[in-house]
């Protein structure tokens, strides 16, 4: 093998090795730069989000408004509790009486009437005894008078019990009117409006400053590094091919190998030759 060819091959191999090393170094540097840029962008986005969230915080006016609404609601609750405490026990009693009536029990509200009925019956008996003598209970007139009294007063009591239910329900309903659960409705609406506005602003601040697209910056840089290392292996393969070709061409053993790189090195005379045998490395 001529000395000029050996020199050319050596220079070519050195050039391939140098180029590969350069590619690796520049690839790694590019990856680091990409990573730094991604980190800077991420940091910048985080700052933007922090600022947006700070701006979305409730203002002093809103906090005062919410505080006032809460105080008002608490006062309304306390007022309702006081009203409930001060409600005439008779109103509550009316409700309980109505419930008893609905359950088919006798209302105690009619106790005075029942008492009066008993008194009037005793008076009737006394009068009948005066009129008819001691055997009035067995006389037809006495029996009829007592039966009529019992039947008629029984009807009065039954009707009264039926009518009383409506009256008692009407009276007990006033308790519900006095203690209205919707007294603080407007207050709660104000509170919900202000709190809802703050929540909406927070959500808008978070969604308006996305951080996710920059979160994978370091992974992209890692991928670039792998790409640079992969390029280095490609260069080494090329270098290996060059050395192998040179060996086949007789540089080391006198044999020849078809190496496409030889063409690029100006050795077109060697391109297409088959490898020899008996070389040093064979």
């Amino acid at each position, binding site marked *: 093998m001529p000395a000029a060819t050996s020199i050319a091959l050596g220079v070519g191999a050195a050039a391939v090795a140098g180029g590969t090393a350069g590619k690796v170094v520049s690839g790694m540097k590019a990856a680091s730069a990409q990573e730094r840029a991604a980190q800077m962008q991420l940091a910048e986005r985080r700052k933007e989000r922090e600022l947006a969230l700070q701006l979305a915080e409730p203002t002093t006016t809103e906090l005062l408004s919410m505080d006032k609404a809460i105080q008002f609601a608490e006062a309304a609750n306390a007022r309702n509790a006081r009203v409930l405490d001060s409600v005439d026990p008779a109103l509550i009693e009316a409700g309980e009486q109505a419930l008893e009536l609905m359950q088919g029990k006798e209302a105690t*509200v009619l106790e*005075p009437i029942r008492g009066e009925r008993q008194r009037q019956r005793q008076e009737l008996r006394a009068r*009948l005894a005066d009129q008819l003598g001691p055997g009035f209970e067995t006389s037809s007139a006495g029996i009829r008078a007592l039966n009529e009294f019992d039947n008629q007063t029984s009807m009065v009591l039954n009707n009264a019990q039926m009518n009383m239910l409506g009256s008692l329900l009407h009276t007990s309903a006033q308790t519900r009117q006095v203690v209205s659960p919707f007294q603080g409705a407007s207050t709660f609406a104000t509170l919900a409006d202000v709190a809802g506005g703050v929540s909406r602003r927070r959500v808008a601040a978070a969604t308006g400053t996305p951080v996710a697209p920059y979160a994978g910056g370091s992974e992209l840089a890692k991928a670039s590094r792998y790409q640079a290392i992969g390029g280095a292996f490609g260069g080494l393969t090329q270098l290996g091919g060059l050395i192998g070709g040179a060996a086949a061409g007789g540089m080391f053993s006198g044999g020849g190998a078809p190496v496409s790189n030889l063409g690029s090195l100006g050795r077109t005379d060697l391109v297409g030759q088959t490898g020899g045998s008996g070389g040093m490395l064979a």
Partner: protein
Amino acid sequence: MADEDIRLLESMAKGVFKGEMPPKLSFDQPGRIKLISALSKKYGTQFRNNSSADDLLKMFDKQMGLMKQIRMIRRAGS
């Protein structure tokens, strides 16, 4: 409003709604006058505009009417 009037009104309300009429009070005209007097002191002369006071008087009148009915039945029987 004097304590006595308050007690009277309370006992009236208890009697009307709970059937526990105090011995000195009854479902008659004198009892009605006492009740109206107590209600006027508590709610003013326009006490009928107050639904609670109005209900109390209505219930008293209803009880008084029932008492009358029973007395009438007894008179008819004798």
